């Protein structure tokens, strides 16, 4: 692949490159002498490893991911949480860092509450969650928005550069769940809505380079309008 089409849009079944010395990475398969995509997204090459960055599709949970979910149900020993995956996700009592009275589970987290959780295991039964760790637990205040989970890396940016930019420009605390749910907490609703708009703006675009500059320009325009 040349420098120009280092990232090109590909569709399932499309041959990305032809050549024996390329390796099939994520979203690709080796077929004959070439590498073929099986996703719709951006193909990129890194040291002969070809992978396809999907720009759409449902969230694929991974161990270690921090995600945002909603409490769906309370059982005798924990909480069933909807983290926007088809599999069931469960937070057991044992994974809460403080002591919880078995008869008072809903005081810690009630049905309908939004929570930040960490995925500590994925198996046939479902997904295991934990809130042992800094920043995890029930969310108070703020607003919740949802973007496609494949856009999360773009919202965070290289070494967190994009999310830092948004936080600075809007004066908000922001937690981005790997599942595409995002919590925004500001001192007033206007700031929160500005952050929400900025995130929507970024997630609707798919090019990777030059995005930070576009976003800086966008914030300037918004502030000038006031």
């Amino acid at each position, binding site marked *: 692949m040349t420098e120009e089409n280092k990232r090109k849009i590909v569709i399932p079944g499309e041959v990305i490159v032809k050549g024996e010395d390329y390796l099939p990475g994520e979203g690709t398969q080796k077929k004959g002498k070439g590498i073929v995509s099986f996703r719709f997204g951006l193909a990129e090459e890194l040291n002969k490893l070809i992978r396809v960055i999907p720009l759409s599709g449902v969230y694929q949970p991974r161990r270690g991911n921090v995600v945002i979910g909603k409490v769906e149900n309370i059982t005798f020993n924990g909480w069933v949480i909807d983290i*926007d995956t088809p599999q069931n996700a469960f937070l057991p009592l044992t994974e809460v860092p403080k002591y919880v009275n078995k008869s008072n589970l809903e005081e810690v987290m009630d049905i309908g509450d939004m929570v930040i959780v960490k995925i500590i295991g994925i198996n046939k039964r479902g997904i295991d969650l934990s809130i042992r760790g800094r920043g995890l637990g029930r969310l108070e205040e703020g607003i*919740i928005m949802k973007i496609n989970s494949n856009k999360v890396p773009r919202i965070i940016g290289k070494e967190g550069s994009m999310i830092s930019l948004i936080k600075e420009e809007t004066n908000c605390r922001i937690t981005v769940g790997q599942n595409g*749910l995002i919590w925004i907490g500001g001192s007033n609703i206007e700031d929160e809505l500005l952050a929400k708009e900025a995130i929507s703006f970024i997630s609707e675009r798919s090019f990777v380079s030059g995005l930070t500059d576009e976003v800086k320009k966008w914030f300037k325009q918004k502030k000038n309008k006031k």
Partner: protein
Amino acid sequence: METSKLTEEKIKRYLTEGKRFDGRKPNEFREISIETGVSKNAEGSARVKIGKTEVIVGVKMDVSEPYPDSPDKGNLMVTAELLPLSSPKFENGPPRFPAIELGRVIDRGIRESKFIEFEKLCIKKGEKVWTVFIDIYSINDDGNLFDAASLGALVALKNARIPKYNEKEERVLFGELTEKRIPLSKEIPLSLTVYKIGNNLLVDPTKEEEETSESRITIASSNGTIFSMQKGGLKELEIEEFYNMLNLIEKTEREILKKIEKYLK
């Protein structure tokens, strides 16, 4: 995932300041876009978009025997389908209550207002009359399907043309339209819905706002005359609130009519 409690709280709180997430005022509609003639085999059709909400409405006509208690009048049948493709909330299968309610509310608005002049749809008294079928389909639900459906039905009716009818062979020549329009009265029975969230009222909710709302009133009216009304939702209304809702609908009706005038010529 449905709208979270956190966001619902925010929506309610923001409304008390008269503000909404997308910057609209409580009595403001999103952008309305209307296309006619979107389905050629229909006698009349329209696509209505309000923000991201989209519906398609088609008018079909057929000739049959009249009902025994109205031998010289044509008939109307309105159905609505909430297509599973338009929202993760809608499932496949026979119409459930929301689709049934939508169809019936739109039906009553058009029927009670006598918008369609049914006596003029009589071909032969006691034997042959025209039936007008209005079929409403949701294509994307981002809130306020009621009003989108009403706009679509009215525009589709206005733009419909009556097909040729072969009296000798007693059959409709579908696909061959005459220049004649469906006989309609001058008053447009526009149907508008006001939603109650907390102690505040608004029109044209987004999906989030609709999920946060507790009650709604849909009214079909024209120039201060009300033809049909439906209250939906669990919460009760104070009489003052109810009167405020009526006022809001009256004000909004004028603005919306101005916006859609050109499609109703």
